[in-house]
Structures are given as structure tokens and as C-alpha cells.
């Protein structure tokens, strides 16, 4: 019998063999259900990592601010653009008696006044005015500003860190260098999907860092754009792991025939999310910073910047996912779809085609999460066997475990 050779886009021995320190054993699911482990993650990962809280264009003008309740940091955070155009973050806590200073979710302000006794802070966090100040004893206003949180930018992404051990550039390392050429400034978000799901944050990330599930979960909705005769299981065309971060490239099916609405979208504006891969054209469709494997049948990249930022890059679009753990079995997630700002009404209509497809397909992904968490909590399985195509899933548990152990 001549069994056709499966198309392996990657190394002959598979991707996992390139990273022998990860092993090939099944992975314990304990990290997804143990509340004590979650507390360790809070202290050793989330309170020491650079966390993405938005992009600089979210705060276009001096005085623009947003307030984020960040449960995993056990605080509320003000992120504000100062009069000097510098973006800063502060704990949203009055240095007088601990009241929450800013109640609004977002806005534009000259400063922040606590609604309890009227202590007033500048956009730079400095304490400017204390009503009836003479009644205090040795109050040093210079030392009583809003408590800052380290804030740095990379390619327009705002990151905060409550206890940084290294600067953001070093933290990102090679994945930052690899993505640096991508023209983020040419894109703007058009739609955001947000959900609050009863599952562990790692299960959530896992759902979006392998393409193995495409052939089953998305069989009816999003299989043919990625998997075809030459690559029926949508094997990744590239994978890379770093100390903390990771990425893979999802293949495109050169024989995919877009639907009538998708063809209209392409006619009106060029690239839609399921535009067929440009087979054999030397990856002409992949933007700078993407498709590092230079595979001709490239569809999109998945880059995971540990622990809370995931970026998906296609030709003419990118998606930004943010993960915010609330408890061991609850996570808030936002997904923003970014495109070059439409220049015409026709391009606006084109984007609507992709947005609807992304929204529908993502709901298939989301469906697995809570069911998985419930079953894991039951103890009915203790370990999960992972394939070579799920290397990024394996890597995440490896990284988390190392950090929790303090290595």
C-alpha cells in the first residue's frame, strides 16, 4: 500500500525535537484548576511581567485617560497621557486614606480629584492640592503623589509592570525585534469583541495557539481557507519559541475558493481575512515582520507575548487579544480587529465581511473553554497528551511552571 506522505512543512523530526528541554510527556492539568497555583502565578508572573493595557492611540490627547480594574494585580489602574505627551500609569488609589480616585472609566482631565476629601493630583501623579492642608502634621506633598506603575511603550503598545526586573525591550527580546518592522501605525481597530469566560487563562490562550483544532471545531466554518490537499491537517508552516514568548505560522490553502460575499469583499477592497494564500508567489502577501519561515502558502501568524498579549497577523489585518485572569477559573478577554483605515465606503463594506466571519468563528473557539474547565475540575483527566502541532501549548505550561518555581 502506498500511503501518501503527509506534508510536513517543518523540520523532518518535527518542531518539538528542536526544543528538547520541553520533553514530550503529557502535561499535568493541575495548573488550570488549583487555586493555590493561581495565587503563585499572581505573585510570580503577573505582578512581575510586562502586561499590555492598550495602545497609545487609545489616548490621543494630553489629559486623555482610561481606568482599568486589573483583578490579577488586585488594583485599579489609571493610564493617562500627560501634558508632556508621556503616557504614565498609576494605582487608582488616593494616598490619603485609600479611596478610589477616578470613578469614570475614561475621559479627559486636567488632573484627578479624589471625591472623598478633595485631594487633587496632576496628570503626572503629583499631589497638587490638599484642602485645609494646615491641619495635617508634617505632610510631605512631594512624597504623597499617586503611586506610579512602571509604564513603557513598544511599537505603540502600552505595557505596565508593578515590579519590573528588566526593561520592556529586554523583556520582549527577539520576538520584539522580529515584529518590529510591522507597520502598526498604519492600522486602526474597527471592532472589539469582549467576553468574560469561566475558565483558566491558560486554557483560553491554548485555544488560540494551535491550528490542530481547525479541522474539527471549524470544519464547517474555517477549514478550507487553511487546510487543503497538500496540508490536510493545517500543519504549521513555522514555529519559534523563546524564553517566554512564542509564535507559529498558520498555512493557507492555495486551492481555497472564497464564498460569494468574500469575493465581493476582495473586489471592493483587496485583502479580506480569508483571501487565498498566494501559493508560489514567494510570500508576497505577508507584511514585514510576519511569515518568518517565508512559506509560500502562508495565511497568518500567531504571536504570543507572554503572558497577556496575543497578536494575529494576516495580509492587511491584525487581531489583538488581551487576557485578564480574574480567578483560577475565570478570565476576561478582549479581541480587537485592526485594519488600515478604510479610505472608501467600499473598503468599509469589505471589512464588515471579515468582522462577521471572525466573530462567528471565534464563538466556536469560545464554546470549548467552559466545558473544558468543568471537566478538568472533575478530576476525570489528570494529564493532556500534546502533539507536535501543539508545541506552543506545551511551551506555555513549561514557562509558567518555571516561573512559579522561581527558576
Amino acid at each position, binding site marked *: 500500500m502506498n500511503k501518501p506522505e503527509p506534508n510536513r512543512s517543518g523540520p523532518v523530526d518535527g518542531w518539538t525535537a528542536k526544543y528538547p528541554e520541553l520533553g514530550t510527556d503529557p502535561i499535568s492539568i493541575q495548573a488550570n484548576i488549583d487555586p493555590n497555583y493561581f495565587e503563585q502565578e499572581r505573585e510570580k508572573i503577573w505582578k512581575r511581567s510586562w502586561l499590555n493595557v492598550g495602545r497609545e492611540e487609545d489616548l490621543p490627547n494630553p489629559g486623555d485617560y*482610561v481606568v*482599568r*480594574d486589573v483583578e490579577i494585580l488586585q488594583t485599579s489602574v489609571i493610564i493617562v497621557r500627560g501634558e508632556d505627551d508621556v503616557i504614565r500609569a498609576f494605582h487608582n488609589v488616593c494616598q490619603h486614606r485609600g479611596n478610589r480616585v477616578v470613578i469614570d*472609566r*475614561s475621559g479627559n482631565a486636567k488632573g484627578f480629584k479624589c471625591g472623598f476629601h478633595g485631594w487633587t493630583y496632576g496628570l503626572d501623579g503629583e499631589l497638587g492640592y490638599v484642602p485645609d492642608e494646615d491641619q495635617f502634621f508634617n505632610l510631605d506633598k512631594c512624597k504623597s503623589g499617586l503611586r506610579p506603575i512602571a509604564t513603557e511603550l513598544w511599537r505603540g503598545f502600552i505595557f505596565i509592570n508593578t515590579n519590573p526586573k528588566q526593561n520592556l525591550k529586554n523583556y520582549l527580546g527577539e520576538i520584539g525585534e522580529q515584529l518590529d518592522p510591522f507597520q502598526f501605525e498604519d492600522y*486602526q*481597530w*474597527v*471592532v*472589539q*469583541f*469582549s*467576553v*468574560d*469566560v469561566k475558565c483558566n487563562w491558560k486554557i483560553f490562550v491554548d485555544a488560540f495557539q494551535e491550528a490542530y483544532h481547525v479541522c474539527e471545531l471549524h470544519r*464547517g*466554518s474555517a477549514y478550507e481557507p487553511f487546510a487543503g490537499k497538500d496540508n490536510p491537517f493545517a500543519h504549521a508552516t513555522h514555529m519559534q519559541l523563546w524564553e517566554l514568548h512564542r509564535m507559529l505560522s498558520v498555512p493557507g490553502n492555495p486551492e481555497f475558493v472564497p*464564498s*460569494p*460575499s*468574500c469575493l*465581493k*469583499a476582495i473586489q*471592493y477592497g483587496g485583502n479580506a481575512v480569508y483571501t487565498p494564500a498566494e501559493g508560489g508567489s514567494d510570500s508576497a502577501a505577508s507584511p514585514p515582520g510576519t511569515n518568518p519561515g517565508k512559506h509560500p502558502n502562508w495565511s497568518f501568524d500567531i504571536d504570543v507575548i507572554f503572558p497577556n498579549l496575543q497578536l494575529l497577523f494576516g495580509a492587511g489585518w491584525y487581531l489583538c487579544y488581551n487576557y485578564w485572569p480574574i480567578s483560577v477559573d475565570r478570565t*476576561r478577554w*478582549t479581541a480587537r480587529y485592526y485594519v488600515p483605515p*478604510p*479610505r*472608501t*465606503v*467600499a*473598503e*468599509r*463594506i469589505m471589512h*464588515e*465581511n471579515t*468582522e*462577521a*466571519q471572525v*466573530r*462567528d468563528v*471565534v*464563538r*466556536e*473557539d*469560545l*464554546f*470549548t*473553554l467552559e466545558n473544558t474547565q468543568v471537566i478538568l475540575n472533575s478530576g476525570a483527566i489528570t494529564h493532556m497528551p500534546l502533539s507536535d502541532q501543539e508545541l506552543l501549548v506545551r511551551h506555555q505550561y513549561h514557562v509558567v511552571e518555571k516561573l512559579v518555581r522561581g527558576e
Partner: protein
Amino acid sequence: MSELPQQFQDLERYIAAGWAKPTKMERWHKRLSCEMPEIQEFYDTMLERLDDVVGHVNQHPLDAVPDNEQPLLNLALSFMDIAPAVEIFGAPDVTGCSYDHRRMTVVENGVDELVW
């Protein structure tokens, strides 16, 4: 009656039926509230007429679509929103297993209040 240009009077009935909602969330929920025959009929007509509709509204700058033609643009946007129902699922909503749509919030940049 809305005030669609003369050549699009045949599409008035879709506006009356609620297919020209102004926001993404409303267009999505309209799709979810309908039965397949109605969606299919809207799809078939719009696929036929889409090049005319887009060609017409595309004469205007993106930020200057006249008020009386906004419903026409919204019909085209609704077509894109319902397309997966016809082309993929054969049902108004995602078939089989999918996350409860009532638990997903859709925010349109510059239109809706941002949620965290």
C-alpha cells in the same frame, strides 16, 4: 418611506423589514432574530444588487454619505453580516456548539462606548 434614490426603490422593503440598522450589534442581532427563509431571500437579492449599491454609495467620501443614503450603506453592511448564515452555517446563528451570543459584547470604534 425612506428617501432612497429612485433606482433602489426595490430595496425599500428591506429597510422596512429592519435590515438597515445603524450599528454592528444591531445588524448582528437582526440576523439572529430572523428565520432562514427571510435571510436567504435578503441574501439573494442583495448579492444580485450589491455591485450597484456599492458603486452608488462609493461615490461619496467615507465621512460624507448623505443621510438619505445611509440606509443603503447599512443594507450592504447587513449583507456582509448575514453572509456566513447562508454561506457557512445554513442557519441564522453559528450551528452546533458556539458561545452564547448574549455573553459577547461588540464595540464599534468611535460609535459605542468602550467596555473593558
